[in-house]
């Protein structure tokens, strides 16, 4: 198996983009992973959706989770901010931490966890409020009332999400008047406003046109410098374009994980190879 078999994926891989130097190679003390999971199981009622998943996610990197529909990749993503809590009958077993904080420990404050772990959804879901109020929502939840501080933080978040120039004149206008791509960047700004450490993205571009998708992908690459990003995607080209590491899931199991280039060009597992060559999924 060589990469030449899949020209589309190869062209999607940036030339000469070296994977980030491993701490060992740089002669530093290995940094602890931002997210760590050991033998993690999750059940929806009687159905087991995650089976003994172990995964480390390095700080300030982009990790893509790929796999066919129903493989558990969204479920895995929703473990990191405990969005699975909203579904009745969810049980978990195993260890999962974000920045050393035990995600499912009974003493863990879900509100604090979700401040540290922001999320962007598949479909842009701005609130039917003004652009400003959308971005300020998380800040107000934190009890920030001071107008000047709110304005500063909203502007900063919008700038980071590469939306500021487009909306600076109409912050009080409805968020629903923005285009789909703008709405998704607004949702990213809304998530960034509370200064999270981790940004979870659940197929963030699957509802967008190619131009808007490209802007989101550029944005992900830019944000990597400051945040740990986990992206769930159906789109293998997208995973190849934006991620440093990729994890492949199937039927609730983590089949393979590794450097993105490595995984796409020299998969170790037969199942991974079958999936990325399009034999199923």
């Amino acid at each position: 198996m060589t990469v030449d078999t899949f020209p589309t994926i190869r062209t999607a891989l940036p030339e000469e983009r070296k994977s980030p130097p491993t701490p060992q190679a740089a002669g530093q003390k290995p940094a602890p992973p931002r997210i760590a999971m050991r033998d993690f199981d999750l059940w929806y009622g009687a159905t087991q959706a995650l089976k003994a998943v172990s995964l480390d996610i390095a700080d300030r990197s982009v990790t893509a989770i790929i796999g066919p529909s129903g493989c558990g990749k969204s479920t895995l993503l929703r473990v990191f901010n405990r969005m699975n809590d909203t579904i009745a009958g969810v049980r978990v077993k195993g260890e999962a931490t974000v920045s050393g904080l035990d995600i499912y420990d009974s003493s863990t404050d879900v509100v604090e966890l979700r401040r540290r772990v922001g999320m962007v959804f598949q479909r842009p879901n701005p609130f039917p409020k003004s652009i400003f109020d959308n971005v300020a929502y998380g800040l107000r939840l934190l009890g920030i009332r001071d107008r000047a501080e709110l304005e500063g933080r909203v502007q900063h978040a919008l700038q980071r999400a590469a939306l500021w120039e487009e909306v600076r004149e109409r912050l009080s206008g409805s968020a629903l008047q923005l285009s789909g791509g703008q709405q998704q960047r607004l949702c990213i700004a809304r998530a960034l406003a509370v200064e999270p450490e981790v940004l979870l993205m659940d197929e963030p571009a699957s509802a967008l046109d190619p131009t808007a998708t490209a802007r989101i992908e550029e944005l992900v690459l830019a944000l990597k410098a400051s945040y740990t990003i986990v992206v769930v995607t159906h789109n293998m080209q997208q995973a190849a374009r934006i991620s440093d590491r990729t994890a492949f899931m199937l039927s609730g199991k983590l089949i393979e994980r590794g450097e993105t280039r490595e995984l796409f060009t020299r998969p170790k597992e037969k199942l991974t190879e079958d999936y990325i060559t399009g034999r199923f999924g």
Partner: protein
Amino acid sequence: MSPARPELPVGLSWWRRFGNAAALGASWVCAAVVIVPLALIVWHLLAKGLPEFRLSFFTNLPKPVGEPGGGMANAIVGTLILVGLGGLIAVPIGVGAGVWLAEYGRGRFAALVRYTADVLAGVPSIVVGVAAYGLVVAPMHRFSAIAGGVALAILMLPTIVRATEEVVLLVPRSYREAALALGAPRWRAIQEVVIPSASAGIVTAIVLAIARAAGETAPLLFTALNNRFWSLQLDQPMASLPAFIYDYAKAPYEDWNRQAWTAALTLLFVVTILSGILRLSLRRSQGGR
């Protein structure tokens, strides 16, 4: 070149075209018939009610038979007070119950609440009046505006509860998720995102309930009774437009009959204006969207 396709008959046969036209025509007629009752009512009210529809009708109190210049100022204000009282009781309870049903309503108790609301919606209004009589009038030993307000509230409640539940369920799940993912506790997500998103539908439900309650006569007969004099006291009988329409329409005096038409026209205006104000204030509160 594309291969030759078998010839298909062009167009429709005459009887298919005739069938189409007949079906279309019939459904158009049915649609038009829907307009007829309201048009007839408005036409009739205007024709019969307009002659007495002048300022004195809105500023004067009812006068004895035969004396010209009688008005229904007390009944107009009374209707507003009674409907307001009913709304004051029914809107918070109804919206609260509807939101609870939509957000948390699972299990037996929720099913019981839904079932009760549905049955309550089907209870004849005169029975509701009797119930309010037993609940309020009998213990107070007196007909009163409060009793009327309670009766109207009971009538409004099921509409508001079930319609609120439906519109809250229509709020996309993604709004809730977005708020929760930002760290909002569930109650804040409901209060700050879900309810505002559903507010247009909730207001529509309230308008419907108020419009229905404003026209109710039967439940007021046992509760607020009626009053020919000016009274704003809530523990006293209170005048209302439906009660006056009822009294004046069946009276054997021609001038009272004419005023009944005018009162009916006025009631129509009151309901229209009330719903207009509610919808306007909603649009204002949503920041001109």
